[in-house]
């Protein structure tokens, strides 16, 4: 599971970022100031960090500097309303990988996060499982074959994993929702439809069959 550390002092922004990224299937750890961020960082060591700059007690620059002393590879994306050149240069000099300027939308946010996760180095153990004609790399959120690759969201990886584990069996909508979203999470049925529809576009219709009145099936 991919963990994201969100550090943002504005409550609403923090909540919105959490909601959006959780929905994509990421595990979110949220902090509202620099000190809390660092203690969370040492506790969970996230796969990617979204970091506000102007925060009480400890600024995003300080947090970034301390994260870099323990981990030089984790992608750090600064989020700020400030976008003057000096801010960006300072942030990048401190070891940040990117700078996301407010205001931004869901699409831009997710695209950036995915882009940085994909950039991580591939290792031999990364191939998670095969789905149809694809190799699914769960940590890099990629489906690859000889012809090319497509991006996946963590949620999509989970759906594919469940269908793969239950190959040639019918998987009910409830099971998919419970397994891939969690029992405490209540997405509308339209949400599942949309995810399946997106996945079919990405990996091909023939690998996700609809079973009327029940759910879906992965034919091997």
């Amino acid at each position, binding site marked *: 599971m991919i963990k994201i550390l969100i550090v943002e002092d*504005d409550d*609403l*922004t923090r909540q*919105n*970022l959490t*909601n*959006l990224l959780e*929905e994509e299937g990421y595990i979110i750890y949220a902090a509202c100031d620099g000190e809390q961020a660092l203690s969370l960082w040492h506790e969970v060591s996230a796969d990617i960090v979204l970091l506000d700059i102007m925060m009480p007690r400890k600024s995003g620059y300080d947090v970034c500097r301390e994260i870099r002393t323990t981990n030089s590879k984790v992608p750090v994306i600064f989020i700020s*309303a*400030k*976008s*003057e*050149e000096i801010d*960006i240069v300072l942030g*990048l000099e401190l070891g940040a990988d990117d*700078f996301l*300027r*407010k*205001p*931004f*939308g*869901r*699409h*831009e*946010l997710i*695209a950036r996060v995915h882009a940085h996760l994909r950039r991580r180095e591939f290792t031999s153990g990364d191939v998670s499982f095969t789905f149809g004609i694809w190799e699914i790399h769960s940590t890099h959120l990629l489906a690859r074959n000889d012809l090319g690759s497509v991006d996946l969201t963590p949620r999509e990886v989970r759906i594919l994993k469940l269908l793969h584990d239950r190959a040639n069996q019918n998987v009910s909508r409830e099971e998919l929702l419970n397994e891939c979203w969690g029992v405490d999470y209540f*997405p*509308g049925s*339209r*949400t599942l439809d*949309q995810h399946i529809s997106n996945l079919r576009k990405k990996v091909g219709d023939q690998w996700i069959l609809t079973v009327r009145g029940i759910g879906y099936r992965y034919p091997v």
Partner: protein
Amino acid sequence: MSFSASDLTHRTRRLQYVTFILAVAILIAAFFLARKQETQKIVHDTTWLNEEQRLLAGFVESLEKQWRDTVAATAELEWAAEEGQRGEAAANTFGVKQVTFFKDKIPEHIALSQKQTTLPILKPYVTGGKGDFLLSQEIMKPSVDGSWISQSAILEFYILHKNPSRAVVLLLDREEVLGVIVEEVKKKIQASSHLRPEHGYFEVSQGNISLIFQSGDEKLNTYPSDEKIRHFSNLGEWTFRYWHVRETRIHYRMSILVIGALLAFVTLITGWWFDREYQRIFKLAASRVSFVNAVSHELRTPLTNIILSSDFMDESLESLRNQRSIHQIREESHRLARMVENVLNFSRFEAGKLIPNQRHDIDVGVLLENCLRQFKPSFDRKNISIETEVKGASVFYTDPDFLAQILLNLLSNIEKYAGRESSAKILVETTASHFRMLVEDDGPGIAPEYAQRIFKSFERIDETILTEVSGAGLGLSISRELAHQLGGDLTLEPSNNGASFQLLISLN
């Protein structure tokens, strides 16, 4: 107007310099106007001048008398001379050029001249009674065959006749005689024991031009002479001139100096006052810009929250009506975000700080898609169709924020001005030498006379078209400036149909 601190210092300093130079110029002008140069004459006693004149006049008269007597004696000798010795006496007399002896008949006009031609100035010659001096060749007409006058330049004759049928006529050259007399006068004047002026200038001249003697400071003769005595002798006019010494004094008129100083002072005070007002206004404007800047920055966080919330809700809303509302919220938030960015970029530009933040390789196709996504709902609503084409490499090294802002502003223009049912096209082309983005629509277009104006800040064409359309007139001017910062230019391309904007960035 620009608002950076260094600019303020620069402008203020320039104003100070101008004021100071103006004040100094006024002072210098007043100094020259107040300065007055006066030349005064210093008068010395000039009784010596009269003495000198009297002495020289007497000398000239005596010389002329001597010569007259000599001419008369010569005529007598010629009268009495034997046939073979005629001309000998005349040859030894100054100024006698020719001798003519009439022994049988005196020409008529010479005979007549005895009665008619004596001029007042020649009276001394006539009174001798033995001969006549006559002045003019006109009167002494030559004989019909012209034989007896061989030198035409001679101006005077002496005629001696003792009976009606015989005469001796001497042709006289008064210039030659005058030359001799002038030389004598020069010697006399050099040797004169009369007091000469220690200062001042004295000159003696004969006739109008011939300067016989001068002494003293010659420069003084640029003034009109102070004393002038003229003497007329038989041979001409003798002039004595004297100039008193001149002394030049400079003095200053206090009133003008005081007025000049006052004017300079007022100029300095006015300059200082303007400078202070200028700084005050300038700081006020700068604080307004920084206020707008701060507010715009503050707007970014709530905008982010609105956009993220609407993005999040969009997924979960079942009802079409609710989805429409959410789309509107998102659309308007993006519009607000564009305005905030334009205002911020404008204030950066005013402060001279509009420079690309970070350049890296971007996928133009993705950028295009992201920008178009913001406009999809409004384009759909207005039935504006849009077509995109990417030629060549889609990866381009640039500042994505700047490029996106330019594209968003151009798309916003299409949304505002192209009109319903219009169609638009975006062509992106990357070659080894340039990056080109062409955004065209088939709307009403922009008249050529507005082609440059539309790129000026706060400028919006034809208010009748635009009364229903919102906007501050910043989008195109800022976009062009962003294009410059990316090393290219944004231009309105000539088009028969609709508006066509081209962003061209040279890659060399």
